[in-house]
């Protein structure tokens, strides 16, 4: 067991704190840049930072030129839960759509495994809110064309997710000209705004319902934390569906 010097522990905690500060860049905060370099070159600092992050239910996922990329564990205080994410009461379809929107944005930005493997300083693609909405709708329509089932079969909760997507309005204006939060457009836009606050995407303009660019940190986040788990989560529900279909 290596004894840690107090200074190292404090530095490790500061590096984690820098990583949790939205918008902070190493080029503008020399102490941040020094701590990143120290993490890269000093094994003691690295072990200590990883331990501090672990204790806080966080994980150091990687680095980009714009800073450290942290991920939150599901049971920790830093995790984004649906209850914090949307403060209004949500129906089953709303909850389903919010989860699906997370998948859709990531899948639009990094559709295949090799898209996750690009270098850690490479910015991702430029895309618009409208494109992501059209993407989910197009995939749902493809599934609709292939479907042989009676659309009214079973309760709403047992019907496939794509049916709920197609029933939901893509966009709808509120009386003051804004877009309603419960539409697909409103949900995608809100999710992107939260990603922007966490420095995972950046907003480029208001064109085409809002245009954005995925940042390298988003790729690292999806690659190191989300992709495998999302795959496992989604696959874990499949047998239940297949069993239900057989009954």
């Amino acid at each position, binding site marked *: 067991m290596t004894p840690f010097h107090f200074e190292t522990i404090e530095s490790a905690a500061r590096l984690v704190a820098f990583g949790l500060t939205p918008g902070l860049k190493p080029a503008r905060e020399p102490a941040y840049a020094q701590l990143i370099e120290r993490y890269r070159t000093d094994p003691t600092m*690295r072990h200590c930072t990883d331990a501090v992050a672990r204790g806080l239910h966080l994980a150091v996922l990687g680095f980009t030129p714009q800073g450290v990329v942290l991920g939150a564990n599901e049971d920790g205080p830093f995790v984004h839960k649906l209850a914090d994410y949307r403060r*209004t009461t949500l129906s089953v379809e709303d909850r389903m759509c919010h*989860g699906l929107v997370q998948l859709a944005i*990531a899948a*639009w930005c990094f559709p295949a495994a090799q898209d996750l493997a690009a270098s850690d300083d490479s910015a991702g693609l430029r895309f618009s809110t409208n494109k992501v909405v059209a993407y989910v709708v197009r995939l749902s329509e493809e599934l609709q064309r292939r479907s042989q089932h009676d659309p009214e079969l079973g309760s709403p*909760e047992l019907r496939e997710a794509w049916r709920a997507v197609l029933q939901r309005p893509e966009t709808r204006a509120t009386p003051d000209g804004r877009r309603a939060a419960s539409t697909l457009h409103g949900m995608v836009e809100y999710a992107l705004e939260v990603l922007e606050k966490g420095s995972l995407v950046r907003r480029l303009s208001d064109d085409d319902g809002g245009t954005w660019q995925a940042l390298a940190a988003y790729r690292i986040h999806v690659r190191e934390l989300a992709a495998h788990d*999302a795959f496992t989560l989604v696959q874990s529900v499949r047998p*239940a*569906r297949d069993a239900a279909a057989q009954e």
Partner: protein
Amino acid sequence: MSEVAPDNWQDAVTRRLRTLVRLGPLHRIEAVKVHRDDDLEGIDLRALCLRALDLTIERMGLGTGMTHDELCDELEPIVGRMRPDLSPAERRGVAEAAVLDLLNERDRRREFRERYAAFDGERVVHREICLRLLRESELGDGTIVLKATTEAINIYAGMLEYPVEDAQIAEEAVLRSQIHRGLIADAVKTAQRYRMRSIEYEQKIQAYLETARRDVTQVDWIHEVLAFLAGARAHLEDRQRHDHDLLRSIEDRLDAAGDSDAGALARLRDTVEECYRRHMQLHGRIIPANQDYLREQDRQVFRPRLAASYPDLEADVLRTALELPAGALAALADGLLARFQPPRPPPQLRLCTLIDKLLAPRRASDDTEVAPELADLETVDATRTYFTADDHAVVEDLLTSLPPQELLLSTWFAELRADGVEARLLRLLGLRLLALFGNPDDPLARRYSIRSSGRQFIDPDFSGDDLVLLRKVPTP
């Protein structure tokens, strides 16, 4: 040159074909322009793309890089020369399209894939070349700059089928010969190509080290990477030695040069010096690479990783999710959110700050309008949320057409409802009356006498005291 001379036609054809297909993306960008919405008649997108690569490589050599907007600024006048009739916005649109095409934005920045037939002895096999031309790289200050890939530099420099190391040696040999023979103008041009090769080599080394560093389990360090590093080290040491010799020859010529050659020789010296510095810096990165690897290996051994490969998010995850029952997917929402969203630092209560804020004197309002948070806006029943100008006009008519006698509000509402007046209009009428009741200075209020009847008003939309209304007859 390390390239083995083809000893049969099959090898020769395959090699030339590979050279040809690498230009495929540029030809395709031009070929599909007719399918675009924009009018691109008379615009040569290939020329724009090549100029874009040229400008990007030039800035990479200066160590800075060029942003997307800066590159579009440079391309815009060229578009204007091709099509003077286009408006500034249209020129900008074409310039942006060329840059986005080089990034392969249409295909979500995937690699360009070019298929070709290769001759393997007597058999024909179909193979694929995957390449990128431009990529965007993030800098520490938050800016994002464009970088040309090694393949793009290769296309631009025009030596497609040679490894960059060999091309560097070849350019340097030509350069040495030209300096020796006093062909300074030619040497300046060769030096530009030599410089481009040094940038390409730098990109190659950086990309290789990045891949090796990111996932140590995917590379064979002992057999592959160490051999690569040893080769790179020897190559860079050679380059530095030769660069140094070249610089000495240029300096010698500069000492004896007349005014006509001095400017060109100085440019030549600056270019070779830049290459020398680049090779020296790269050498400095190669030396500690082995130590870096050992550290990464140490770190990655403990990193939780479920498998070496990643799933296809579109095919394996999103499509599967869309086919799940809505209820089952809803149950996963928290789990998905937890994984895809960034950490959210919970706000912490600091008691003394809170007390200070509570006890602070009230600040003067700056009268700026605060926009409500969009995220929580929900559309409620649209028929009840707002009133049109027509609604207001109808209500004004109702108010002015009131007979000049005392009338109980509940009676009036019951009559209007029986006449089929919409609930929305009744609601507006009620609100208008309340406004009159509470604001005696309203010009309309002066035309009515409104008092409480003391009885309770029972209505689906309102509750409270029933009002007695009297429209005052204007005195002549």
